[in-house]
């Protein structure tokens, strides 16, 4: 129990290192989520609503990729950015950028898959409305996204949750470097490896509290209402 007190003591005394770790975690998760959604939403909408060759195959591939093990995503990025790899000269390995790239590979298929399922549910109605309003293709496409914004927002939160909780990929490409690429999950792993099990658990609880605060903030913004009112 004293280890718990110690961990929360760190948090409330705003221990510089813990604050820095939380900062890196939020920065990484913010960019991973943002980029994954920017790529994944249009992909999902296209797969749900557009007629194109290989649509079914694309759908299969995407849903398969939702099962991509984080460690494999990490390895792919590692192989790309290793010193003698194709992009080795960019010096991206063991930086937050590398962690974001690995997470985007991991999370984009999840965003695309989930959002295509959302849009499939009502894309016919939306298209008829769009035809009625005389909208062009681009505007119709935008309508698929804006009309589903509440559901897509929860897809975004899923992406964020995945990103903030992920450890396999970020430890490979980030390296868990203190004051640089250490995030909450890799810090938890490190404390576990040190044998500081209760401290590690306390860090896990802090991570959950952060996620809770973000979710509360998000629900305030989205202002979701029950339909039974």
């Amino acid at each position, binding site marked *: 129990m004293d280890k718990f007190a110690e961990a929360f003591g760190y948090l409330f005394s705003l221990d510089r290192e813990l604050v820095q770790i939380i900062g890196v975690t939020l920065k990484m998760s913010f960019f991973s989520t943002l980029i994954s959604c920017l790529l994944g939403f249009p992909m999902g909408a296209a797969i749900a609503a557009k007629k194109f060759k290989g649509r079914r195959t694309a759908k299969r591939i995407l849903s398969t990729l939702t099962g991509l093990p984080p460690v494999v995503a990490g390895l792919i990025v590692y192989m790309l950015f290793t010193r003698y790899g194709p992009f080795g000269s960019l010096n991206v390995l063991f930086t937050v950028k590398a962690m974001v790239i690995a997470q985007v590979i991991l999370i984009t298929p999840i965003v695309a898959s989930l959002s295509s399922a959302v849009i499939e549910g009502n894309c016919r109605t939306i298209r008829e409305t769009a035809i009625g309003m005389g909208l062009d293709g681009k505007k119709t496409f935008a309508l698929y996204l804006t009309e589903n914004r509440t559901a897509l927002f929860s897809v975004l939160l899923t992406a964020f949750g995945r990103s903030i909780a992920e450890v396999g990929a970020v430890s490979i490409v980030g390296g868990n470097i203190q004051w640089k690429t250490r995030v909450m999950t890799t810090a938890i792993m490190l404390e*576990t490896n*040190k044998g500081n099990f209760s401290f590690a658990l306390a860090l896990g609880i802090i991570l959950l509290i952060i996620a809770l605060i973000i979710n509360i903030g998000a629900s305030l913004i989205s202002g979701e209402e029950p339909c039974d009112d």
Partner: protein
Amino acid sequence: MKRTLALVLSIVLALAMVFSLAACGETADTAKTPENPVIRMSTTTSVNDSGLLPYLLPVFEAETGYTVEVQSAGTGAAIQKAVDGNADLILVHAKASEEEFIAGGYGVERLSFMYNYFVIVGPQGDPAGIADCANAAEAFAKIAESGSSFISRGDDSGTHKAELKIWGDNAPNPETDTWYVSAGQGMGACLTMASEQNAYCLTDKATFLAMENKGDLAILLAEGDDMKNTYSVIACNPETLDGLNTEGAQALIDWLLGEEASKLIAEYGVEEYGEPLFYLIED
């Protein structure tokens, strides 16, 4: 389409059943099984990842009928698992922590039985010029002076503790000394990082030699009075901890300290690397 799918699924299912049955069969027929056949050993990554335990333990298991379940982690976690009652014996390499473990009443006796050397590896060009240093402390001072990158385990492991001991009062601050990278990862991951970033690193020799992809890394300093790495085995104390397999732990310790294991340890690595990876402590 549906039919082929069903066929494929049923084949996969059948195969899974066959394999699980085969696995059951294996555990069922150990002839001379001791009463409590499972020994839980908590150990550091260096003895396991270097292949030493996978090489020794099958011999012990075949002779005695025991099954040794090896959990490998950094020394800190390895000891903590034993404190929590999840191991029958430990095999680690951090003297101070071992003595603390025994003083806390968790271990019976510290039996040091083998050693090897830590080595300093780094880029072949040796930018800090450490190859001629007399010991690790001198080499570390040169690395610090030249500001060459250095990867530290930073994970409270035996190797990390040995590294901190060598730095002594001159330990760098990972926040301000950007050349000093505290990675918080296992030996293999740190060596990979050192190879990526042309950095120096303190490692046990066995793990480095067993590493597949060394890149530009080479052993630059191999022997110094401050680089000895002693491994000890400690049986957990049945007076403090419940549910231990004390008999099994003792059997394994006796075997490890015995003649046959000594011979095997002394031979380990000679064929592959031209030198032994571990040396016996003669008493």
